[in-house]
């Protein structure tokens, strides 16, 4: 069967469409053009680069785990329960999506910092998070969690509750229904949400530098390292940027696969 001929688009839309695509793609080409291929290996394997890369990988993984631990239950409550103030709560939870990350970092600082809202209580407990690796993870979780919540909540709403009702009528308790029915049915949405949060955590800059600072080996993640190298060693910055571009492309591929399975 041949696909029916689609309705014509206005011809002029191709011009801005092409311009838009070029605007997004050209800078990637520019990065590729600028890479010092001869020293590429050395540049991305230097001591500082490796440290920053591993720190980024570890903190992003940790924050993705935290996103799952808190974000999945949050998405469940938002998608499956109705209570007064639900829509307000939903908007506020998604705030980090639109908030400038620097503002997010400041907000975290004045919550968990030494003189913050909870700082006193935490000092009594002997915990100091500001300007530590934990702060990096917290900053990343703060900005990345909404991505998981948004895509999972959407998937949960699309899946509906019909299968869950059947499962319950067959004698499955809430936890069994969650584990054996709800999660498998929204798995594609969960995977793409997780991948997007990981990507967001990996690229996090503003909140991290504000709340965690830029301490080599402790809080200086890859984006911070790139920003710093830009001044002293532009070639290294470009090489590391390319690494992040490659990671981003892989992430998009993953997320698309997750969607495709829907």
């Amino acid at each position: 069967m041949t696909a029916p001929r689609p309705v014509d688009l206005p011809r002029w839309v191709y011009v801005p469409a092409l311009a838009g695509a070029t605007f997004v793609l050209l800078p990637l080409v520019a990065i590729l053009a600028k890479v010092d291929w001869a020293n590429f290996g050395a540049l991305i394997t230097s001591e500082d680069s490796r440290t920053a890369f591993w720190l980024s990988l570890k903190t992003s993984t940790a924050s993705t785990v935290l996103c799952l631990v808190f974000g999945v239950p949050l998405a469940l409550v938002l998608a499956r329960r109705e209570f007064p103030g639900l829509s307000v709560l939903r908007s506020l939870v998604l705030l980090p999506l639109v908030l400038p990350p620097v503002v997010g970092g400041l907000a975290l600082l004045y919550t968990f910092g030494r003189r913050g809202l909870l700082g006193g209580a935490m000092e009594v407990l002997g915990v100091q998070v500001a300007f530590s690796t934990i702060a990096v993870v917290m900053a990343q979780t703060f900005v990345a969690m909404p991505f998981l919540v948004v895509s999972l909540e959407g998937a949960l709403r699309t899946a509906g509750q019909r299968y869950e009702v059947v499962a319950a009528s067959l004698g499955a308790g809430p936890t069994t229904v969650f584990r054996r029915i709800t999660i498998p049915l929204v798995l594609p949405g969960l995977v793409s949400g997780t991948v997007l949060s990981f990507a967001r955590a990996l690229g996090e800059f503003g909140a991290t530098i504000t709340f965690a600072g830029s301490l080599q080996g402790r809080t200086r993640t890859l984006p911070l390292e790139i920003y710093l190298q830009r001044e002293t060693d532009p070639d290294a910055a470009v090489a590391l940027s390319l690494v992040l571009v490659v990671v981003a492309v892989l992430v998009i591929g993953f997320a698309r696969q997750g969607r495709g399975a829907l």
Partner: protein
Amino acid sequence: MTLELACDVAERDVGVAFEVATGETLAVLGPNGSGKSTVLGVAAGLVAPDTGRVVLEGRVLTDVGPGRPGLLVPPHDRRTALLGQDPLLFPHLDALENVAFGPRSAGAGRSAARRSAQRWLDEVGVGELAHRRPAQLSGGQAQRVAVARALAAAPALLLLDEPMSALDVAVLPALRQTLRRVLAGRSAVLVTHDPLDALLLADRVVVLSEGRVVEQGVATEVLSRPRSPFAARLAGLNLVSGTWRDGCVEAPDGLRVHGQVEGGPLAQGEAAIATFRPAAVAVYRDPVEGSPRNELTVTVSELEPLADLVRVHAGPLHADVTVQAAAELELAAGQVVRFVVKATEVSVYSRS
């Protein structure tokens, strides 16, 4: 008694009470919006009534309302398996794992649950499809798997909500036979709008109308002597409801129908029902002279083709005539005609 159910759901204007004996299948009949699904929802614990009490095998599942303890056992803890129009097989599990879901949830081990699942699949005739995914099953096959899945959960009460209404007509007779077999001796509530389902699958029927029970009894009895307009329509009969006066049923609108009195004599002024088959009605354009038959003057409201017949609707009454007769009479909506029925073709009985 397996199930005692009484509920009031103000929001949907439903107020119903009935019982299901152990091993009995009860059909709940009624037009759309009569509250059938609400009643199933109350039994399954999916709908919280304003006032209501549900007792299954001596265990109180729902007891809510003013001055009640406010008990509402959650759906998974009621032992009431639900089977709806759509099979709703879990798409990520194959047929066997779908059926094994109930036993697994009840704590059975993996292999024991699978053995039991395979037995139920064999029982409903789809044992060889055990390893198919739901997407690879036809509608009829999927519904059979759903039946097996509901039964495998070993429910104390099986709730069936129009389980055959979404299926292809071709597969209905075989599935009906299967259901007949598995429902025998099992406590079940079957919501349906098909009188054949009620006759073949149910021991007793309850007829709902506008959220109230209007009729109940043995399935064959209700469908051969309907007392509500809905049951009469299901049974394919004309129904005139009125009072017994001077040897005939007199309807509030003055219509008088003579017939054969069944099931004991009627007292003057007693509420009575007259029913007759549409095929027993002859249609005339002009008054028929001096005959001992019933002659009802009616206005044609609609003509409906029905295989090789034409069904002539006149308000709540209808007559089946041949296409030729309809053509010769030049029938059209709005026309005044006479419906003539022999008294021997009319059953008359008490409404209570």
